[in-house]
């Protein structure tokens, strides 16, 4: 086996020369910084890295990376990235998307990329609003939300993106937020290391159209009491003194309880590798919005055959069995006759 030297790089090497054009104060800046600063540590090459996006504020992301990049059309990034990742297994393909792009216009492509387990790192910036079209409600907006298109309040029941991903048979599902660079980088790194489709929801503040949507849980002073940090192999505890935890009730449902009430032995130990997605799904349902204690971290990380690998194996196996395709023989593969 040959070892390939990966040149040492810095954030600057991963930043393009294009001026970043998000609104000042947008949460996207901190996500971009987290990614640009993480890339040198991932042991990957710029020329083998591709960022693919759809439409929306988040979708401008590829322009700011000095990798290969493709800014496509609304909702279709997972489909386009599927063609790229399966035909070029040597590439590290990232999809950057928003809640409207991924869960509204592109919902179909997202769920199918997840169930197929295509080797993609899908980052979904969730700001619970349509930013680029200037402030309509999104499929993750809370019920009753007053926006430009819902002056009397939104009637839509929102998606829970983590539930959607787990329901779509995703093999890696995580959540992080734009106020914690170290946590974002850990989630992105693990998504990158995961073989198959990795889905990371990033709570992201839109300071123009939905400012402070996550402040109640991601604000520095609120995190301890409001973020439930999921760690593999550890009891699910949170609170300033880790005095609260997640337990399973007699009826099978999960609940947030004071540890003292049930005892540490009755607090669930988080296991990201459980094949059965039921518990991960239940964890995703603990919170119905950023107003109550909300789990972040990796919900699920299981192994399943990666789609591109299987597709390419079929091609290679067939070549091995039949030999390389012979056009002359192909044209004669149905009954033919010869005229002398």
């Amino acid at each position, binding site marked *: 086996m040959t070892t390939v030297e990966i040149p040492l790089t810095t954030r600057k090497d991963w930043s393009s020369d294009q001026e970043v054009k998000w609104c000042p104060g947008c949460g996207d800046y901190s996500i971009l910084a987290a990614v640009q600063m993480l890339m040198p540590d991932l042991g990957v090459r710029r020329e083998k890295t591709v960022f693919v996006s759809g439409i929306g504020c988040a979708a401008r992301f590829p322009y700011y990376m000095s990798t290969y990049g493709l800014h496509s059309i609304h909702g279709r990034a997972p489909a386009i990235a599927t063609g790229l990742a399966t035909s070029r297994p040597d590439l590290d393909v990232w999809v950057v998307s928003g809640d409207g792009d991924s869960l509204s216009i592109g919902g179909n492509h997202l769920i199918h990329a997840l169930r197929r387990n295509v080797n993609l790192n899908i980052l979904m910036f969730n700001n619970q609003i349509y930013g680029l079209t200037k402030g309509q409600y999104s499929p993750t907006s809370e019920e009753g939300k007053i926006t430009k298109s819902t002056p009397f309040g939104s009637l839509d029941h929102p998606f829970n993106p983590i539930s959607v991903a787990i329901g779509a048979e995703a093999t890696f599902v995580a959540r992080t937020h734009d106020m914690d660079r170290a946590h974002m980088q850990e989630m992105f790194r693990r998504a990158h290391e995961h073989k198959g489709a990795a889905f990371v929801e990033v709570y992201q503040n839109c300071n123009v159209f939905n400012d402070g949507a996550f402040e109640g849980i991601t604000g520095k002073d609120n995190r301890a009491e409001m973020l439930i940090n999921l760690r593999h192999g550890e009891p699910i505890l949170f609170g300033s003194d880790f005095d609260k935890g997640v337990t399973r009730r007699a009826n099978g449902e999960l609940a947030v309880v004071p540890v003292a009430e049930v005892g540490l032995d009755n607090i669930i130990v988080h296991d990201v590798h459980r094949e059965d997605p039921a518990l991960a799904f239940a964890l995703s349902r603990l919170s119905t919005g950023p107003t109550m204690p909300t789990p972040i971290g990796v919900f699920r990380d299981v192994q399943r055959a990666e789609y591109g690998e299987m597709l390419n194996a079929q091609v290679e196996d067939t070549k091995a069995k039949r030999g390389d395709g012979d056009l002359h023989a192909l*044209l004669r593969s149905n009954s033919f006759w010869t005229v002398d």
Partner: protein
Amino acid sequence: MTTRQTEQLDRVVIRFAGDSGDGMQLTGDRFTASSATLGNDLATFPDFPAEIRAPAGTLAGVSAFQVAISDHDISTPGDAPTVLVAMNPAGLKANMGVMERGTTLIINADAFDERSITKAGYASNPLTDGSLNQYTVYEVPMTSITQEAGKEAGVKPRDAERSKNFFALGLVSWLYTRPTDATLEWIHAKFGGKPQVEDANTRAFRAGYDFGETAELFDARYEVRPSVFAPGDYVNVSGNTALSWGLIAAAKMADLPMFLGSYPITPASDILHELSKRKEFGIRTFQAEDEIAGIGSALGAAYGGSLGVTTTSGPGLALKGETLGLAVSLELPLVVVNIQRGGPSTGLPTKTEQSDLLQAMYGRHGEAPLPIVAAKSPSDCFEAAIEACRIAVKYRTPVILLSDGYLGNGTEPWKLPDTSTLGTIEANFATKPNHVKEDGSEVFWPYLRNEETLARPWAPPGVAGLEHRIGGLEKADGTGNVSYDNVNHEKMVHLRQAKVDGIANDIADLEVDDADGDARLLVIGWGSTWGSIAAGVQRTRAKGGKVAQAHLRHLNPFPKNLGEVLSKYDRVLVPEMNLGQLSRMLRAEFLVDAQSLSKMQGSPFRAAEIEAAIAEQLGAL
């Protein structure tokens, strides 16, 4: 045994018709195969409903297969059948409209019970009410003889009945002196795994053949001598198969892996099926979640350096429109195959039409020109596919390849090309920076164009130093960076148009078949109407009429000499299976008074219809 004379025919057109479940497509296909190996020229026209099994015995459920076999070169499956094989009353009723007086009807008499007769919409039994007096009718108890034959194979009558199409095939094979070996071998290969079914089908086929021999029903047998073919290897090929093989050939010529992203749709799915089987050619086939993902994945693969292909029919092309616009903007090679069918909306899924020309031409937002290539016959789909791929790769552009249900499912003998002389298609991936900045540093500009073709570099990820970002936002000429500059936008609109227009310098001039050189009427068409037009032109000439014929392979851009060709004729007739889409384009482009001949009945033009329209035009001169 009676000895009968064998009469020579130069051409016969047979139509097999029955219920969707009666196996008519298979029967027609096998009759075609044995005629092909006999050396006849032939053309086929499968004609079936969209429903897999419409209610048995109804007109809606009638499935038909028409084949013309000939001892000379033919270009259509025939205007009107000379023989109709009707398996039931509905099959008879649905097809009597195309049967001319004096033609032959071979009828499964067992199927004409009162209930079936009523179900087909007959007020009285056509076999006894005299309505078929002007036809040569052969009433054959196909079902009961087949059941008898099945009994010997130990098959229950109800199951045995299902072999009656093989009885019909045997009978018609006898009548037209077709060899039986190939069919028997085929039955063995197909049903060998189920010995009882093989036995029942073989016995039914033999029973049909023997029935012709012994029943003394038929006065004569017929023979259609082999046609004169140039030396070479031949196959009887459908358009969808030839098109699939053309794509494979093009990928080989370009030395590119093919990626097919496709969503099943009638009548295009057979291309997905065929390519899925051919993984030894390095083809990745991907059945996407929808039409949009079909083209999206193909475009993503094209970005990665594959020959990206997506296949569809009209409704699917509509869904692909936005991604096509992106492909125009990204300037990446992509081949979009549209096997057209009757529209709008779900329309006539299994019936043919040419009504997507303007959708192919204009069905995107913004000024989004792209090249359009059309195939003219089933075997021509091979060359057309190669041409579409050649243009796509050379000019870094999406190309729409138009075929239709008639070409896709229809078959004809095809002299196989010499695969060693197909030539190459140069992908010419970018390998190094292409621009030196003022400070002397070398950079890669993804939109720095080839001066001759105006094509931009194709730079799949993986090459250090060529990292670049592209997208659907307008790009600055050269650098490819996002640009909202108004003057730059207009320049880019013109550049994209000029690139497509310039392909006219790289395609063959339009050839005109003007036998005497002094015709005043030109008949011009595109796509699958070629065979019918050629036959109509021949008929006209046989009667002394002067008419020229031309057929367009390229619909966008048009061949350079098209304007000059059109200007030479006093009248121009454009037969199309739409309401005049090409004639509209010709009028707009060349200010020529192109007359449209329109037909939208889900079936090809008949030669007689073309001949009549030509006569009308000649009369007006």
